[in-house]
Structure formats: structure tokens, C-alpha cells
């Protein structure tokens, strides 16, 4: 583990982007940030600007209208960038699969590092996915 990847894995800054979800996953992400689950103990802070973030949390099925916005946000992220698909809709578009207005998951539009399943995801699952991702970040050079 190099010192840069070690430092990175200790202070992951998060940006949250909703691509058309029902807001259940978004509320669970907010629950993670509250003192009960408190992902800030891993150094994770929710940032308002994507230009300050290391991790992009995407919730909801990617709709045709939001596709270009998602690509634009992804391109604005500084390297190295990690994308986490939060919830069933983001991983595989869930019950919306086959509908005319969605893409079959976030990974059909941008590369995804970690998938967190659940409808909605449990905060414990988000912490599990985040710790998996942080381990991966720490192992990278």
C-alpha cells in the first residue's frame, strides 16, 4: 500500500447523484451519514461538488433524459474515480428493465467499481459496500 492510496482510502469524499430513483435509496444514504450509522468514521464526507469527490454514488435507474448529465458529471470527476451503484435499480434497472425510457443499469453507461443490492439498500449494506471499495482503493498503487 503506497502512501497516496493509503491516504485516499482514509478520506474518501463522496458525491451523490440520483438518476431517477424513487428516493428510498437516497434516504438510506442520508441515514448512513447520520450519527447512528456514521460513515464519517471512515473519513467519508458528502460533498456538494463532483469536482471535489473521489466516489460517485449513483441511485436509481438511468433514464434516457439523465444519461447525458450522468456522463457529464462522470467526466468532471478528478482521477482516480470510483462509481458505486446503490440499489437494485442502479445495478440492473430492477423492475424498470425493458422499459422504453431506461438503460439496463449504470454499468451500461459508465464503468462501475462496486454494486450494492437491495430495494431499498440497508445502511449496513452501504457500509459493507463502502468498506469493500475502500479496501480496493487501499490495495491499488
Amino acid at each position, binding site marked *: 500500500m503506497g502512501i497516496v492510496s493509503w491516504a485516499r482510502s482514509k478520506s474518501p469524499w463522496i458525491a451523490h447523484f440520483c438518476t431517477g430513483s424513487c428516493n428510498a435509496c437516497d434516504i438510506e444514504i442520508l441515514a448512513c451519514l447520520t450519527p447512528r450509522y456514521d460513515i464519517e468514521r471512515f473519513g467519508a464526507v458528502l460533498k456538494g461538488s463532483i469536482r471535489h469527490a473521489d466516489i460517485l454514488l449513483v441511485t436509481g435507474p438511468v*433514464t*434516457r433524459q439523465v444519461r447525458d448529465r450522468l456522463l457529464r458529471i462522470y467526466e468532471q470527476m478528478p482521477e482516480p474515480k470510483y462509481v458505486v451503484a446503490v440499489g437494485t435499480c442502479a445495478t440492473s434497472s430492477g423492475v424498470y*428493465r425493458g422499459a422504453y425510457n431506461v*438503460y439496463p443499469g449504470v*454499468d*451500461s453507461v459508465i464503468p462501475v467499481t462496486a454494486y450494492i443490492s437491495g430495494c431499498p439498500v440497508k445502511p449496513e449494506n452501504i457500509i459493507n459496500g463502502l468498506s469493500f471499495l475502500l479496501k480496493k482503493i487501499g490495495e491499488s498503487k
Partner: protein
Amino acid sequence: MNVEEDVLRELKEAFGGLILEHKTQKMRVYIRVPRDSYREVVKYLVITKGIYHLETITGMEVKDGIEIIAHLGTGLSISVRTTIGKENPKISSICDLIPGAEFYEREIHDLLGVVFESHPGLRRLVLADDWPEGVYPLRKSFESKHNAPLREGFD
């Protein structure tokens, strides 16, 4: 006699033979009118009777055309339904009577391709900006499939 029957009797007195079909339920009155009288019936309800609250306008493709239903009223709702042909579907707009109808008509135009004549701005409302012209996703002939992935290796 209950209130639904009273409403239906008044409508029958005003329009007589134009009401092709009717049905009443608790707090609901359904009438079917020909396409050309749709606006006239809504105008009667709004202007003469003062029922100016529009709950919604729904559109659906049925066997012999596209069915448009305007649901009017508070508490007791009166549903004016009419069927228009699938080929080149056109109906007169009710936006000048009820300004709130504008968005419902734009949505039906997007999803079913119904043209509302004399609508102030029949622009795209719910579909994506790059959606192809002339493709209407709620038609029976539309084959629903999710959008093609941008990256390779996905179905």
C-alpha cells in the same frame, strides 16, 4: 333519487341523443359522447354548470381507437369519454376552457400521438429530448425495449 341520477338526467336533457352510453356509480358519472361533441359537452359542464375543476385527462389505446377521458368535478366526478381513430388521431383541445388541461394534453400527445387542435403549445413534455419523432411508447404497436447500452459487453 340520488345525486348521480340527477346529474345524468340533466346531461340527458341538455344533449339527448349525443350520449351514446352512460354508467353511474357512487359519486361517479360516466358518459360516452361522439368525438365532435366532446368539447361541447365539456364546455356545457364548465361554463353552464360551473364544474371547472379538471381532475385529469387520461388516454388509452383500445380495440377500435384511442379513448380520451376527461374527469371533471370535485367530490362527484363526471367522466366524459370519447374514442378517436388510430390513424391520424385528432381532437379539439379544451385548454381555453380549463387552462390546467394544457399539461395533460401535452402528455397524451407525447405518449399516444393524439393531436389536440388549437392547443397553445403542443411541445414535448415527458419524453427525453433525443426521443425520435413519431414514436409513441404507449401505443400497442410499440415494442418496449430498454435503450441500447453505451458500453460494450452488455445485453
